[in-house]
Every structure is written in structure tokens, then in C-alpha cells.
């Protein structure tokens, strides 16, 4: 024990190993907290609604649950139709307020959990493919916990440091010979091995517990006894493991990986006796296969790397579509016998490396005399070893906060001395400046010149600046070959209409597949809304993306994403501070982007509305669909055109009304 205590003190205090372990823990923890994104953002954003659905669905799919899903789906569709019908009838004066309110209340009850139901229904589609081993549960926690597939560099560096320091420090101060000649010399070597291996295991265990705690607190880790396949990443896996078992297995595999890495490094250190070379061997033995070898090959090699990555052993096969449409295996599941072979050989190699390390640090008089290997035996042993190794083969902020008039339904936007118009046919945005020829907002001659995957998908005007959203799909060729992954990058560019200066103020890759130096990694579905974005606007704090049925707010500084409970099916107006919209009950409401509070705009019930410089203009459902104007707080309502009208639009400073009677669009003078 004394030797162990002294060796621990030497390595952990003298060589600062403890500081290194703590640094690795802090870096890994901070990195996890800073970069972790939910795998299923809908499930996370509508957590309470989803939880309501889950109360009825939790567990394996059965006929009863399937029937409930179908019934609920139909009920939602019917409730939406019923509400629209009740609204139409009420504002047309066909039904009483009481009837309308009770109908709206009934529909509201059904639709209360609509968004959560959408997430549950998506899960149902997944579960129904294989109901025997795919269960309903809140998967974000487990998915996050189990799908951490990137190599933890902090762990790698910590193990590298400890293992290289353990013996090399003795060689550096020439204490190795003296230690060997003491009766407890072998115990000293064993203690070093034990401390390094123990530290590696402790680091992995603490990191696993840290991850477990993080995901348990952030998302929750319910139903650890449900099958692993309940998490989509493992959908095709044939392993009969529960989620908790899979976590324990993955954690154990990572521990083993760290132990194996430590063993290999310790052995290397007693052979090469130099810090630098030992550290290089460890880095090369891990990074070269990580970057140089295909994923499925990695998990069939008895190296520390596959165990450090771990979850690949639990995954099922993955397929990609080849040029001819054929399915090409990207990753073939590691079968139990393959795993047994790899694990067996790895364990044997680890034991051999540890034994070799202690043996090379032991006094000759303490070693049993054994017949020496013949000269032919050494190459044969090297060949055997080689066979064993190969066998399983990211300025116009002041302008942005100014009062602006933005209507998402408008086809053209007006700024200081210029206008931006959308050509519906070519889907191009054109900048028209006074005294200058019209030009595309994206003027880069290279934009779309050599690729069809480049387009401008939205524009917003504030003061003298035009902001436009570009989408660029590109083949990513960090890993050469035919199965190049593609990425779609979305950028918001600020164009100063006076100086024509351009600055990219937001940039984000929306896809989940990308490769970094050949290492594939995923970005989750946090940004999956970007391809569906049809318009956007911004202030000095946030970007607001109007997606098909929702509005997503992205904090400009923290890049945090939040879905706002605002229906985005109609026009969304923005005045630089408040966002105006029509809710499910056709009431016009305003969302204050500073206070994040929603308030009704007077008592306006509108079929359609738009924002003008003077206030709001709307088709008043309470007044026979007449066109009215009011101030932004809903007061001073004045009728400007007797109805009935279908919609109002405000473009280029001009108000136009589409009549209900004949569908004509007529200008209205304010």
C-alpha cells in the first residue's frame, strides 16, 4: 500500500496527473453542455404535449394504441375543420356567440396537444416499422446519451499524458534501474500500471456518470428497460439489449478502450523510453485509424479506437443509395461473433501489453527462467500478432431596431430609396434603386454559376439594409469517393443598398451529415426547420424564421433556438419590436419580442390583416368582412371599404384589397 501511495503521489501530484484528469473532465463536461443539441427538437419543444400523448402510448405499440393514434389524428383534422366552420358561421352571423364559443372550446380541447401529437405520430411511423422492439418513449435523453460517437479528445489526451508520464518520468531521471533492483520494484511497476489503468477507468466512469446526470437532468432518462431499438440510431440493430443495458455496455466498452489505450501506451513507453515518441504512438494509433479507415472496418479491428467510440458495436447496418439507386452498405452491423473475436483479441493484447510492461520493469532475478524464444520464434510471434491485429478485419443593428413595416405575405419590400421585389416565376429577389438599374440582391456572379443548389429563399428590409437568406447545397468532399455527403448551408447576408457592402451575419448548416477530415458527425435536427423557411425578419437580438406552421426565434448571440407558439399559416407582420399575427380564433394578437408577451390587439377579429406605416389594416370579421384600419394597439378603428373582402395586402406603400365577390384586387386610398 505504501508503494501504491508513493506511486500515486509521484504520478498524480508530482507529474500533475490529477490536474490533467480534472482538466479532461472539465473540458469534456463544458464541451457537452455547450454543444449538445436535442436529437428530436419537436419532442423537446412540445414536451408537455408530447408527454400527454405518451401517457396513452408509452411502451410497446398495440392495436389499442394504434387505434387511439388513428382516432386522435382524425379528431384533430375534424377539430380544425369544425373550428374553421364555426368561425365562418359565427362571423357570418349564422350562429350565436355561445354556440361558437362552445364549438371553439371543444376544438381547442382536441387541438391542445396537437404539436406534441405530431411528434408522437412521427414516432409512431418509426415504431410501426418494427413494433416488437421499438417502443414509445421520450427518446432525447437516451439518444443523446447513446449516440455520442465522436472521439473524446480530452480523454485521449489525459490517458496519453498519464501513460507516457508513468514510466518515462523514471527513465528521464534515471530511476528505472534503481527501482528495478529493489525487492518491491515489480510492485512499483504494478502500482504504476494499476494507477494509470485505474485512472483511465475512473475518468471514463466519471464521464459516463456525468453524461448520465446531464441527460437525466436535461431530458430525463425514462424506461431504461425498453429495447435499444426504440432510439432511431439503433433502429436496425439486432442486439437484444435494453436502453440501460446498452448504456452500461457502451460505458464499459469505453472504459475498456481507455484501458487498452493505456496498456498499449504503457508498453510503448517501456520500449521507447521517451515521452514524445510514446505520446506520438498513442496519438497515431488512435487518429490514423479514425481518419484513415472506413467506419465499419474500425469496429472490426482489435485497437483501442473502436472501444473508445463504443456505440458502433451496438448499431445496426446503415445503407446509402448508390449511383444506380442500389443500396450500398455504409456500415455493417458488428455481429456477436465478430465482437467476441475483436474483444477477445483486444483483451488478450491488453493483458499482453500490461504483462509486458510489468515484465520489462522487473528485475531479472525476479523473473522466472523460461526457455528463450529461438531466433525463428520471434518473427513467428510478430507474424501471429500481425495476423491477430488484421484478422477481424460561424452592422445594421441600429437600423434593424428602427420602426419597420414588414408583412411576410408581401411580395415586395420597401426601404430607404429602394425596393426589393420577388419574381414569383423565377423565385429571384430583385433590388430596385432610384436612379439605378435593377439588380439581383445576390450579386455575386459566382452565386449559382456552377451549381444548381444555390438560391435566395427570403428577404427582409430595414432602413438602408436588405437582409436576404441564401441556401447553398454543396457536395462535401473531405472524404473522397462516390458516397460524398452533402450539406445545405443557410446564410443571412446584410446588403447595404447605398454602398453595396455585404456582410454575412448568420450562417448555419442544416443537414445532419457532414464530414470533418473523414470523420462523419451529425448536427441533430435543431436546424432542420431552415429548409422549410419561407420568410424571415430580425431585430438586434434575434432572427425570426417563418416556417410552414411555426415561427422559430434564434438568438443572435447565443444561437439558441426557440419555437414560438404563434401560428404561421397567415400573414406575420413585424414593426421592429412587435410581431402581429392572427390566432386560431381569428383574433389579431401582438407578440412583444422584447418582453416575450402576447397581447390581443384591441378586439380585432380579422380574416386577413396587414401592417402599414399608420397601423393595421384588416378584413373585419365582426363587420361583415369590411376593410378597416386601426392603430397598432387596436384603437381608432375606421372602416375604409365596405365588404365583403377576402384579404388585404400592403406592398410598396400601397394598400390593395381582394374582393370576396369577384376575386378582383382593387387599390384602397387611405
Amino acid at each position, binding site marked *: 500500500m505504501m508503494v501504491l501511495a508513493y506511486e500515486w503521489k509521484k504520478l498524480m501530484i508530482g507529474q500533475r496527473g490529477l490536474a490533467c484528469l480534472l482538466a479532461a473532465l472539465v473540458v469534456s463536461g463544458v464541451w457537452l453542455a455547450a454543444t449538445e443539441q436535442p436529437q428530436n427538437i419537436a419532442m423537446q419543444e412540445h414536451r408537455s404535449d408530447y408527454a400527454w400523448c405518451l401517457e396513452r402510448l408509452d411502451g410497446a405499440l398495440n392495436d389499442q394504441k394504434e387505434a387511439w393514434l388513428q382516432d386522435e389524428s382524425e379528431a384533430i383534422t375534424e377539430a380544425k375543420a369544425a373550428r374553421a366552420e364555426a368561425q365562418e358561421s359565427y362571423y357570418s352571423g349564422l350562429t350565436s356567440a355561445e354556440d361558437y364559443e362552445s364549438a371553439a372550446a371543444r376544438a381547442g380541447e382536441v387541438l391542445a396537444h396537437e404539436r406534441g401529437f405530431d411528434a408522437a405520430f412521427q414516432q409512431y411511423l418509426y415504431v410501426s416499422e418494427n413494433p416488437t422492439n421499438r417502443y414509445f418513449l421520450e427518446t432525447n435523453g437516451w439518444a443523446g446519451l447513446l449516440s455520442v460517437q465522436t472521439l473524446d479528445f480530452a480523454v485521449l489526451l489525459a490517458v496519453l*499524458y498519464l501513460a507516457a508520464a508513468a514510466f518515462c518520468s523514471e527513465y*528521464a531521471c534515471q530511476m528505472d534501474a534503481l527501482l528495478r533492483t529493489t525487492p518491491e520494484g515489480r510492485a512499483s511497476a504494478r502500482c504504476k500500471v494499476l494507477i494509470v489503468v485505474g485512472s483511465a477507468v475512473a475518468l471514463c466512469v466519471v464521464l459516463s456518470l456525468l453524461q448520465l446526470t446531464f441527460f437525466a437532468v436535461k431530458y430525463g432518462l425514462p424506461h431504461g428497460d425498453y429495447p435499444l431499438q426504440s432510439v432511431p440510431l439503433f433502429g436496425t440493430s439486432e442486439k437484444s439489449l435494453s436502453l440501460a443495458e446498452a448504456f452500461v455496455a457502451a460505458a464499459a466498452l469505453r472504459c475498456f478502450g481507455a484501458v487498452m489505450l493505456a496498456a498499449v501506451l504503457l508498453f510503448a513507453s517501456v520500449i521507447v523510453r521517451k515521452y*514524445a515518441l510514446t505520446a506520438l504512438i498513442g496519438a497515431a494509433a488512435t487518429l490514423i485509424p479514425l481518419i484513415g479507415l472506413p467506419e465499419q472496418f474500425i469496429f472490426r479491428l482489435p485497437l483501442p479506437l473502436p472501444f473508445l467510440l463504443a456505440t458502433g458495436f451496438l448499431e445496426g447496418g446503415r445503407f446509402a443509395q448508390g449511383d444506380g439507386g442500389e443500396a450500398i452498405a455504409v456500415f455493417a452491423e458488428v455481429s456477436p461473433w465478430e465482437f467476441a473475436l475483436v474483444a477477445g483479441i483486444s483483451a488478450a493484447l491488453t493483458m499482453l501489453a500490461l504483462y509486458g510492461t510489468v515484465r520489462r520493469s522487473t528485475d531479472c532475478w525476479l523473473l522466472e527462467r523460461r526457455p528463450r524464444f529461438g531466433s525463428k520464434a520471434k518473427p513467428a510471434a510478430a507474424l501471429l500478432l500481425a495476423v491477430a491485429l488484421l484478422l477481424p478485419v460561424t452592422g445594421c443593428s441600429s437600423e434593424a431596431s428602427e420602426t419597420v413595416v414588414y408583412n411576410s405575405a408581401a411580395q415586395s419590400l420597401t426601404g430607404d430609396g429602394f425596393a426589393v421585389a420577388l419574381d414569383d416565376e423565377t423565385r429571384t429577389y430583385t433590388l430596385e434603386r432610384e436612379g439605378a438599374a435593377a439588380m439581383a440582391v445576390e450579386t455575386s456572379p459566382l452565386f449559382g454559376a*456552377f451549381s444548381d443548389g444555390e438560391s435566395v429563399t427570403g428577404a427582409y428590409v430595414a432602413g438602408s439594409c436588405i437582409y436576404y437568406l441564401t441556401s447553398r447545397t454543396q457536395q462535401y468532399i473531405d472524404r*473522397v*469517393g462516390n458516397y460524398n455527403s452533402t450539406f445545405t448551408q443557410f446564410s443571412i447576408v446584410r446588403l447595404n443598398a447605398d454602398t453595396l*457592402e455585404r456582410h454575412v451575419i448568420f450562417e448555419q448548416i442544416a443537414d445532419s451529415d457532414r464530414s*470533418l477530415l*473523414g470523420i462523419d458527425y451529425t448536427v441533430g435536427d435543431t436546424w432542420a426547420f431552415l429548409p422549410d423557411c419561407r420568410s424571415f425578419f430580425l431585430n438586434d437580438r434575434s432572427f425570426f424564421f417563418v416556417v410552414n406552421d411555426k415561427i422559430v426565434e434564434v438568438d443572435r448571440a447565443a444561437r439558441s433556438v426557440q419555437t414560438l407558439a404563434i401560428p404561421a399559416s397567415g400573414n406575420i407582420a413585424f414593426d421592429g419590436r412587435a410581431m402581429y399575427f392572427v390566432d386560431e380564433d381569428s383574433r389579431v394578437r401582438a407578440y412583444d419580442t422584447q418582453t416575450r408577451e402576447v397581447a390581443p390587439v384591441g378586439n380585432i377579429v380579422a380574416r386577413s390583416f396587414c401592417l402599414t406605416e399608420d397601423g393595421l389594416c384588416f378584413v373585419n370579421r365582426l363587420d361583415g368582412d369590411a376593410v378597416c384600419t386601426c392603430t397598432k394597439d387596436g384603437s381608432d378603428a375606421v372602416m375604409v371599404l365596405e365588404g365583403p373582402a377576402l384579404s388585404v395586402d400592403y406592398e410598396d406603400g400601397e394598400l390593395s384589397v381582394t374582393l370576396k365577390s369577384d376575386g378582383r384586387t382593387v387599390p384602397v386610398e387611405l
Partner: protein
Amino acid sequence: MRLVWYEFAKLFCRRSVLVLFVLFSVINLAKIYSEWDAYSFLADGGGERSWHTVYWQLYDQYRGPIAPEKVQRLLATWQPLAQATADMTANTATDDANSLTGNLYSDRNLLEKYFIDPMRYCYEYGDRAASVAEKARQNAEAAAQAGALYQQRESAALYQIYAGRTVPDFAYTEMANYYLNYDFSLVLVLLLGLYGVAGIFVEERETQMDRLLLTNPNGGSRTVLAKLMAASGFLPLVTTWFSLLDLAGFGAAFGTLEGLDLPVYAIPSFAEAPIDLSVLQFAVLAAALRSGGLWALGMVWLAVSLRGRNALVPLVANFALTAALVIGGASAAYSHFVWAKALDPYSLLAGRPLLAQTEFLDIGGFPVLSWQAALAISLVAGLAIAAVIYLLSPRNTYCPIRRLR
């Protein structure tokens, strides 16, 4: 010079460095071969009806200037195949005597992948480049009208780059494409460079030679200068060797060096390359940039290891720093934040993030191509770090230049 040579021999002609050179070279060649074997459709052997054999037979007919008769001939071969296979009802036999490769679908795929698509790209490139040049000219006029001087200059520069670009010849581009997109050797270069350089100062301290060196007329700062110069020789040597090895490896694996004289923008992923060079010249430039990037990074490594007591701490610290730069650089590789690319030496090391896209940096109102700015920034930063290392180097107290305090 003698001192530099001795430092070079002492630091880099060590057995471990030489063994790593050989080992990493073998690993690199194995990786190159595996790229060809795994991804090239022409790696299907030398059989009479293999894609490899059929391709090279057809290639002789279509190589060289893209002439209308060649295009007609190619279309005459391909169109019937495309029509026959469009509804997926063609003969699926794999020993069809009327086909080149034994199967009609296979014939169509071979022609599309290796002849139709590349030739169409080459043929259309001139018009696309002309369109870019024309838009650039219009932009320059619009910018001049708006009084936007920088934009005018940028558009003019863009015009200069794209005006008159054409790809007149058709050639085999697969090898060149794979070669220019290959970056595995970068990892080996980084590991070898880091191992070679990170221990330069530490080793003298470990062997207590630092004190002895200080007492010699050429010791102290002159030795430090010699070490810096030796490292400045070693790092480019590593990149040059692996760049040459990459080229030789790809040439050997694909069995040809065909396509190296094509303009680099003949490779689709380099359509927006800002330079008008052949593939071979581009490879030389990329190797030079990689050398510049590794040299600058090497100076950073040296600065980190300047005060290390043993080799381990600086090595691990440099390893972590390099990993951070690589991850940061790779994340910004396809970003519009050009400054982020220009400031990270990884961009120079990988080359492609700077050389595959025409991007400018506004430096004093003048548009500077991103790769030129990145190279200049790296060289200036490297020189500044080298100067700091030199000034902070230990000196004999009799030395006339005292350490800056």
C-alpha cells in the same frame, strides 16, 4: 549554415524520425491504394469487359480537344443506350454480346459517369465562366455608379479571373479529382511535424545541453536561430515529401498521370478556383501553401514548448492546440466568414478551403484573394513568433544583447 546543418542532423535525422517517415509513407500509400480500390469504378480488374478496359479503349477515341464530331459520336453511342434503359425494361443480362461491358445499364452508366457528364461540364464551363465575367463587369459598373470603390475593385478582379476561361480539352479527371481532394496525408504531416518540432528546446534541457550551449560563442541565441532555421527546413521537407508521395501514389494506384495538364477548374469541385493553373501547377501551389501553413504552425509549437521541462507537457499541449485549430478550421472551411479561414493555418494546410473558392478579403479597400491573405498572415505570424522565440532565448550574460524585460 554549418550550425544549421548540425541542428538539422541532430534534431531530424534521428532514427525515430526516419522510421516514422518510412512508416507514415507506407500507411499513406496503403490509404491511397484503398481510396482507388474502394471508390474508383475503374478498379474492377483488367478483364476484357471490365470498366477499366472498356474505358481506356473508349478514352483514346474521345480524349483531346472537344470537337463537334466527337460530341456527336459520343451522343450517338449514348442516346440509344439512354433510351433503351430509360424505362428500365432493357435486357439485364450481364453477358450481352451487343454491349461493351456485358450489360446495357452498365454501358450507360460508364458512358454517363466517365464521358457524358465530364464532357458536358467541360463544354459548358466556358459559357458559365463567361456569364460570371459578364455579371462581374455589370457589378463593377453598378458599383462605380454607386461609388462603391471596393465592390468595384472586387468585381473587376473577379472579371479578370473568369474572363476567357474555357476547358477546351477532354481528359481523364478521376485521378486528379481524387488527388486534389485527398487530405489523409495532412494528418500524417501534422503528427510527424509535431513530433519533430515539439521537443526541440525541451531536449536540450533534458540532456542539460542548454547550459553548455550558453557558454559557446555560437551558443544561446545563435543556436536558437539555427534551431529555428533547421525547423524551417524540416517542416517544408515533410510537406513536400508527402505532397510528392500523394501524387506518386495516386499516379501508381490509378495507373496514369493523365489529366495533370488540364486547367484545375476542369475538376468540378474546383470550378470556382481563383487561379488559372494546371492541375500539376495547382498541386505545387497547394504543397507550397501547406508548407507555409505547417511552418507557421511549427513556430507556434516551438513557442509553446519554449519553457517546457520535459517533452510530454508541450507535446500534449501542442496536440490539443492543433486539434482545436483543425476542428475550428475544418468547421469554417466552407463558411462565408473568410477571415476565420484566413486566420487559421489549417486552411493553408488543407488548401482546398482557400483554393477551391474565389473569395476576397477587404484589406485597406483592396480585394485580396483569401489564399494570398492567409499565406501572408501565416508568414507574418510565423515570423513574429520566431522573432519572439529568438528574443526570449537564453543568452550568456557576456552577450551584448540583453534579454528584453
